[in-house]
């Protein structure tokens, strides 16, 4: 495989493109609304109408507005159809010729939900066929890998990523370039690149969508990372709950191997890179990097103390680079368009865009990609369309069980790593769940604590025992059995667990409690048992006789 072969594939793909392309969403969301049948119906309708030479029906990845699926778009014209049923296929195909099809819900591609998005990671999502590598190559695919292998030294690649200001999209926001530089610098004959696709935060489905819609962009990013840090083997650690994403990845890896874009001597350079998939088995803690490593090694997914960081001693004690799916998906566009271009998007410390999964009590649920620094209010109210039925939005939850609830009056804050941290939440992986007035915050806190309690791996005591006790206290409060003393104890425990737990799961487990206490304390106070409203100090220090009960 040389660049001419790549160009030839792209040219062939371009020249065989038909006048009209009907795109049908084949991501997991729309497929559960039977978009497969819709696609089959469209294909049959095209055949029946004898339009096989003019109209292509293409299965594509996520078209973003999941709540209105199955989605179908028609190009040219940029028409969008929502909630398409297999029975609508004939009418829709007839409509391609001119007449507007009747009885099919027409979507508005100019709605702020679409118009305010800026696509880097999702640029190909909903456009290309994720199961055909040719489709990705036509969309400039694997050009960055070629440029890197033929024209750059590994150091130059690392420098570009450093300059771009890209930060990890998995949650903590560690500078990606710095991580790459550390792995590159660490001596070792064998190094690994790992893609963390263990998207465990409830309410987050960005990584799933990226892998289902454009798996090659992530693979290309991984291969570039492999070259930059000196690794020849990559692993993708993905949740077993995402069967479609696993299948598309398997197809993508196979196709890339077949035409020599993975394997040995890529683009006739001395660089070899193979990628294997490791399927998780349903443990939230495996999103933590040292636990993830243990799981890839076939052991119980329990974290270990850091340092040593995986960059120095990771998989089988070799230097290991671990990045999230979205982080890798940003790499090829950065190489292609330059670090300056990427750094010009976003805010001072948070560059580029972020993909969010918008869900909960909101009209437009689905995927959005916006520049860092976009005000939350714009995302939730303009793009998301607010809460259904005109209800008032109460809070937005970000960061999953490690994050917090941002109250409605703080929604004018921009989304970037620093602002969200200041509000007691975190950027997290990108789940954004909207809650309206009907949602009770102490119940939300209990919900997340139950999650952390179940998912605690049990290795360190603060997390193992602390989450159980915090859950018990929250349960009492929600059931109106709690006292002021319980609340004080809860706050004390929050601090203890946050400060003493071994890994991020325990350290962040109190976040939902602390953030709801910070902004919605009244809701807790209203639930406390009547007559228990003595000053907090008196309740917090029980008389010596009662001491045994607490321990």
């Amino acid at each position, binding site marked *: 495989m040389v660049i001419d072969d790549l160009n030839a594939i792209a040219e062939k793909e371009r020249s065989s493109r038909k006048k009209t392309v009907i795109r049908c969403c084949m991501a997991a969301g729309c497929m559960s609304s039977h978009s497969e049948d819709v696609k089959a119906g469209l294909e049959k309708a095209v055949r029946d109408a004898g339009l096989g030479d003019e109209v292509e029906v293409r299965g594509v990845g996520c078209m973003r507005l999941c709540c209105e*699926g199955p989605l179908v778009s028609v190009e040219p014209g940029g028409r969008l159809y929502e909630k398409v049923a297999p029975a609508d296929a004939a009418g829709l195909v007839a409509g391609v010729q001119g007449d507007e099809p009747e009885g099919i819900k027409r979507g508005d591609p100019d709605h702020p939900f679409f118009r305010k998005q800026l696509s880097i990671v999702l640029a190909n999502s909903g456009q290309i066929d994720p199961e055909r590598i040719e489709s990705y190559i036509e969309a400039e695919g694997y050009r960055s890998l070629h440029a890197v292998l033929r024209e750059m030294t590994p150091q130059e690649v690392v420098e570009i990523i450093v300059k771009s200001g890209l930060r990890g999209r998995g949650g903590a926001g560690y500078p990606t370039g710095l991580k790459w530089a550390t792995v590159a610098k660490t001596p070792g004959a064998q190094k690994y690149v790992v893609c963390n696709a263990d998207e465990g935060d409830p309410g987050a489905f960005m990584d799933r969508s990226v892998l289902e819609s454009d798996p090659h962009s992530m693979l290309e990013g991984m291969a570039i990372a492999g070259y930059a840090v000196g690794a020849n083997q990559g692993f993708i650690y993905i949740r077993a709950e995402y069967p479609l994403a696993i299948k598309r990845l398997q197809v993508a890896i196979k196709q890339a191997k077949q035409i020599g874009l993975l394997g040995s001597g890529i683009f006739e350079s001395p660089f070899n890179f193979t990628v294997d998939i490791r399927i998780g088995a*349903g443990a939230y803690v495996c999103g933590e990097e040292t636990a993830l490593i243990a799981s890839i090694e076939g052991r119980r997914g329990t974290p270990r103390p850091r340092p040593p960081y995986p960059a120095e001693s990771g998989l089988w004690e070799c230097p290991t680079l671990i990045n999230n799916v979205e982080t890798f998906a940003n790499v090829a566009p950065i190489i292609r368009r330059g670090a300056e271009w990427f750094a010009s998007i976003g805010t001072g410390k948070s560059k580029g865009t972020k993909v969010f999964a918008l869900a909960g009590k909101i009209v437009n649920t689905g995927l959005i990609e916006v520049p860092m620094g976009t005000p939350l209010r714009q995302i939730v109210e303009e793009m998301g369309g607010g809460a259904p039925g005109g209800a008032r939005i109460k809070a937005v939850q970000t960061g999953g069980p490690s994050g917090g609830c941002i109250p409605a009056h703080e929604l004018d804050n921009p989304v970037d790593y620093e602002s969200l941290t200041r509000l007691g939440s975190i950027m997290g992986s990108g789940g954004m769940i909207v809650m309206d007035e009907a949602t009770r915050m102490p119940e939300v806190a209990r919900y997340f604590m139950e999650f952390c309690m179940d998912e605690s791996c049990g290795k360190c005591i603060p997390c193992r025992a602390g989450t159980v006790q915090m859950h018990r206290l929250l349960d009492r409060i929600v059931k109106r059995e709690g006292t002021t003393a319980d609340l004080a104890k809860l706050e004390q425990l929050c601090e203890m667990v946050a400060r003493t737990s071994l890994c991020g799961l325990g350290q962040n487990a109190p976040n939902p409690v602390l953030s709801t206490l910070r902004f919605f304390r009244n809701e807790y106070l209203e639930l406390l048992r009547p007559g228990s409203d003595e000053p907090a100090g008196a309740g917090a220090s029980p008389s010596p006789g009662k001491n045994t009960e607490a321990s």
Partner: protein
Amino acid sequence: MRADTIKPDRKSAAARVMKHASGDKRFKILEAHIRKFQGRQDALIEVLHKAQELFGYLEDDLLLFVAYQLKLPPSRVYGVATFYHFFTLKPQGAHTCVVCLGTACYVRGSDKVLAAIEAASKIKAGETTEDRQLSLLTARCIGACGLAPAVVYDGSVTPHQTPESALARVKDWLPHGN
């Protein structure tokens, strides 16, 4: 309590497991799968995935078989099998119903959907009806948040569920006549 079933007497246990395995074609398929990984011990999770796919659940003999094949102590295999939620050591019902309890589904009322199914089936989440017809499970998040609340009936994700629609769907899987 598991100590009763996995006896310390290794030799006789090994003999029993191998005798059990010799009469079942699925063990052969599993063995081939293990060979695909060259018997690598770090493939344990992959092997357990395959084992569960073949047998539906991970019974003691199966875990011992995997341990012998990968030359791992049974404690390690058992430890891994019980650590991950995806693996089940109990037989499942003919039908499965997985209620997603992810945050998006939760704020849209999946707890009420679950409560309705629990009440109608008289089992709790994680249990199987006595006639082995229905296993009721919960998921942390299946990533179908745009379709909340979602329930997975026999592997097919079904969007926008209500207690009523869920009950209509599982009605035929429930024990009759009570």
